[in-house]
């Protein structure tokens, strides 16, 4: 016990401490950036209609809150496959299909990752959510309220109003890039199909 306490208190050389701390403090954000840039570069692109609203974040500045007509609220009747045995939060897989108008629509929702998908279909993974059964049957009741970590768009201070002004006119669309793991990354914000903000890789 005492020996362990002494071992845990052993001081390391300041140069080694510098190297270790730098590795974590610089390495971690760098890894996050590379991870996200990879989704932007290699992900499959889909386009969704959106409705923006405008609040503020203390540490990251102004942002526009985005709601997606197609995927933020999904009808429970689209649910396929088995429900989890326990009542716990689960991440859901959405199968999206791009229609004639170029906008993606939800075809199916499931807990298990769908194995075979038709060409033109993309898989998107939600943040954990809770499913409520309808009665005792193996179906999902009502609307599913889903989040994907793409509900905010950060803009330079004071510019949020510009996008917000178009919110009730159904003219704003968002292009997403989606990785093989179903993670989504905002690539462009468009008004009337023209890019308002285009995301650089870095």
């Amino acid at each position, binding site marked *: 016990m005492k020996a362990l306490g002494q071992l845990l208190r052993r001081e390391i050389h300041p140069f080694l401490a510098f190297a270790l701390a730098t590795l*974590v403090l610089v390495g971690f954000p760098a890894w996050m950036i590379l991870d996200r840039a990879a989704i932007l570069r290699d992900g499959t692109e889909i386009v969704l209609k959106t409705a923006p609203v405008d609040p503020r974040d203390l540490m990251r500045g102004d942002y526009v809150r985005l709601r997606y007509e197609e995927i933020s609220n999904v009808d429970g009747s689209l649910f396929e496959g088995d429900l989890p045995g326990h009542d716990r939060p689960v991440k859901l897989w959405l199968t999206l299909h791009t229609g004639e108008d170029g906008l993606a629509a939800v075809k199916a929702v499931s807990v298990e990752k769908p194995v075979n998908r038709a060409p033109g279909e993309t898989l998107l993974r939600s943040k954990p959510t809770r499913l409520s059964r309808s009665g005792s049957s193996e179906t999902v009741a009502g609307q599913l309220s889903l989040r994907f*970590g793409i509900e905010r768009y*950060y803009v330079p201070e004071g510019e949020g109003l510009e996008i917000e002004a178009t919110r009730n006119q159904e003219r704003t669309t968002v292009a997403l890039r989606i990785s093989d793991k179903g993670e989504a990354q905002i690539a462009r914000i468009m008004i009337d199909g023209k890019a308002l903000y285009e995301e650089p890789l870095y």
Partner: protein
Amino acid sequence: MLRRYLRREIDQWVANGLLDSAQGEALLEDHDRRHTGYSLSSVLASLAAVLFGAAVIALVAANWEAIARPLRVAMIFLFIIVGLSGATFAVLRNAHWIAEAMLVFTLLCFGAGIALVGQMYHLSGDEAAFMLSWAIGALAVSLSFSSPMAAISAGLLALGYLFTVSDGLGIFSSWHGPDLVGYVGALVVTAAVGVSAWRSRSALAGHLCAIMLICTMVWIFEEGTDLNPSYLLAAIGALAFATGSLVPSRPSAPFARHGTLSAYGAVLLLGGLGMVQADSDITSLPGVMAFAALVLGASVGVLVVAGGENHLIRRFAYFAFSCETIYIVGETLGSLLGSAGFLFFGGLVLAAMAYAMMRLERRFKKKGMQT
């Protein structure tokens, strides 16, 4: 605080003729020379570090387009490296307070860096992940540099993580059912905060670790079981108090008898019992009285066992006792006889306690003279 206490005591000794007034002044001067100037400069250095760090965070939040994004990332990395190199050279020159200030600045820049990545790639709904990443950075700094300030930061950030990931310890959570990954994660972070507190010899970080452990337990209990977490708090408190105060002390024991462990035990036991009482649906007068008697008995018991040795425990037990008395008066206001009888009984208990305390304190004094 300490200086005021010292001044008062020295004045008292001088008045009693135990000490020359010149000697008293000399003692105070010696105290001032060794404490004041040193801590003032270190406090100023830390404040400056916090201000610089806040400026970096504000710079990120402004999302200022005049500086290109890759340049902003490079600036943050540069600040982190400058902060860490500054700390390294300060440690090499034994200027520990400057090192601490540098590390605080570095950690604020690191937080700004993760915020910047979130802003660049428009991440949302990741508050818990953000707090956890920041806490991990603070832990890395604290563990490598044995830094107390970084350990305290890590403790605070880890608590923030715990509250966001658990939806306020499960109290505001909309779902129930075990979240094993979350529990294990919280316990691992708690253990890491504990190690960094131990390494850096920071008592404050140690307290944060203890608070985190208690909060994690409450979370697991609230979400994973149908039981009321107050029972758990009372049980942990009783156990901790018994271990800290009733187990015979050995020189090699990892904690002092009637020390911090007992104090935590006393606070949790009495606080937990109070919460059980506030939540309970006992409405009959005898039932309420019986429970009140239990709480009063527990506070008296705590006082008798450890109150003489630990003034924190003594004050908390007095506090719990008075709260309980006020509660009883409130509960029994309808039946005056009941409360009068109870107050009379309470008075008897207090008198007995005062007598017991007098005996105890006299015995301590005797023991003190013998040794």
